């Protein structure tokens, strides 16, 4: 373990610990994101009412509801995370440490991912209880797959929330930047989640999961390389 590598890891952990400690003390973001996700899935769930039990025949609807709620809740989380940095002076204190700035990116990524992990189970329960979505036999696979997608959403979201925080419109611009780039990931996530709701096997889901993993790798690599240019101030 070279000294540089230890410094790199410690910067990541320091940035992550800062945000997690803030959240544990204030307890404001996770409840907010959770309630927002549930309210959004409630409203979208009313599609079931108007079409008359379409959900029982069409699992795509429930996966779509799930992913829309996660996306909208994530916008809240990412905007808040970027605004904290902007108000506190823009991560200058971390820039003075002689490590690659991607350490700061990963440090911001970890709390964002953890917040989303913590709400996904509740949203699943909500959809299962209130909209009679089937309890999938492959629930472990389901949670694993949605976790992998959430990592990709968080990578793109962390990067673009930091970018949009520097514009005039602040966090309002984040969805316009984020959603077009996330569309391939969302399509793959909805497809894989709906296949797993239908209790389909690993062989059918694996194609979509491969796409999700490639997307995650590419977005994390690109975002960590370009993050340094975002902070040049």
């Amino acid at each position: 373990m070279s000294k540089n590598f230890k410094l790199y890891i410690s910067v990541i952990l320091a940035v992550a610990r800062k945000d997690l400690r803030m959240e544990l003390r204030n307890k404001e973001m996770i409840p907010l994101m959770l309630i927002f996700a549930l309210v959004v899935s409630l409203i979208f769930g009313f599609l079931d009412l108007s079409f008359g039990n379409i959900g029982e025949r069409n699992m795509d609807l429930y996966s779509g509801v799930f992913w829309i709620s996660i996306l909208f809740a994530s916008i809240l989380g990412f905007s808040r995370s970027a605004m904290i940095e902007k108000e506190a002076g823009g991560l200058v204190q971390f820039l003075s440490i002689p490590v690659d700035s991607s350490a700061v990116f990963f440090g911001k990524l970890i709390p964002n991912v953890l917040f989303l992990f913590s709400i996904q189970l509740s949203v699943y329960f909500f959809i299962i209880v209130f909209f009679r979505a089937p309890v999938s036999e492959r629930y472990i696979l389901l949670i694993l797959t949605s976790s992998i997608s959430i990592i990709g959403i968080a990578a793109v979201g962390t990067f673009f929330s930091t970018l949009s925080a520097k514009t005039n419109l602040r966090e309002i611009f984040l969805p316009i930047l984020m959603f077009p780039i996330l569309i391939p990931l969302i399509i793959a996530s909805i497809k894989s989640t709906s296949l797993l709701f239908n209790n389909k096997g690993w062989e059918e889901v694996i194609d979509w999961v491969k796409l999700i993993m490639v997307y995650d790798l590419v977005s994390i690599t690109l975002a960590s390389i370009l993050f340094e240019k975002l902070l040049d101030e």
Partner: protein
Amino acid sequence: MNLLFVSAVIICLFVLIFVIKFEKGLSRWLGISALISLSWALYSIIFIAKLDRFQSVPQKIFYIHVPSAWISFVAFFLVFIFSLKYLYTSRSRDDLLANSFAEVGVFFNTLVLITGPIWAKPIWGVWWTWDARLTTSLILWLLYVAYLMLRSYIDDFERRARLSAILGIFSFLNVPIVHYSVLWWRTLHPAPVVIRSGGMSDLPMSMHIALWSSCFSVVVLFIYLVRKRYKIGKFINLKEF
């Protein structure tokens, strides 16, 4: 038909007079040659290119749809190159060029997204479908529109140039995905007819004439528009400081 022809000629004459009177130097030649080549391209599309056996007249949109798509990919590639260049050199010229290429690229991409559905409706029966090529093309359009929006929402010059350079690099990732989407997935949109091995000989000569004249005129128009946009941008920069 006659009325259309006469009004087209009158509009062309007006544009010609405008170009000759108000442009100087290279822009004048570019403008005139854009006008002449566009007129020749239109003539060759309507009168020279033979009718396709299955699609007849709607197929002729191909001669506008395809070169516009090609030139928009080239434009976005140039945005990528000059964004990288700006991050390396921090010269305002590179940032301005990237912006000009992005604007004209979005213009031609919009043309693609308009002519595409017009062609699709008589042939496929629907204006739009969510196959891989159309979805990724729409994403491409949205990404570069977001690029232009980002530029308008930042006032500080250095920050605007740097952040839009980053977005220009990120968005280019989608261009190869759009191009190869017809080969990687089963799509309703046809696979490449011209850009493939043996593709050039598949097309009859008359169609080649129309296609490449249209391509040439689109390229000349592209260069003319980019130069114009660049000059306007330089002027705006001067005024701002």
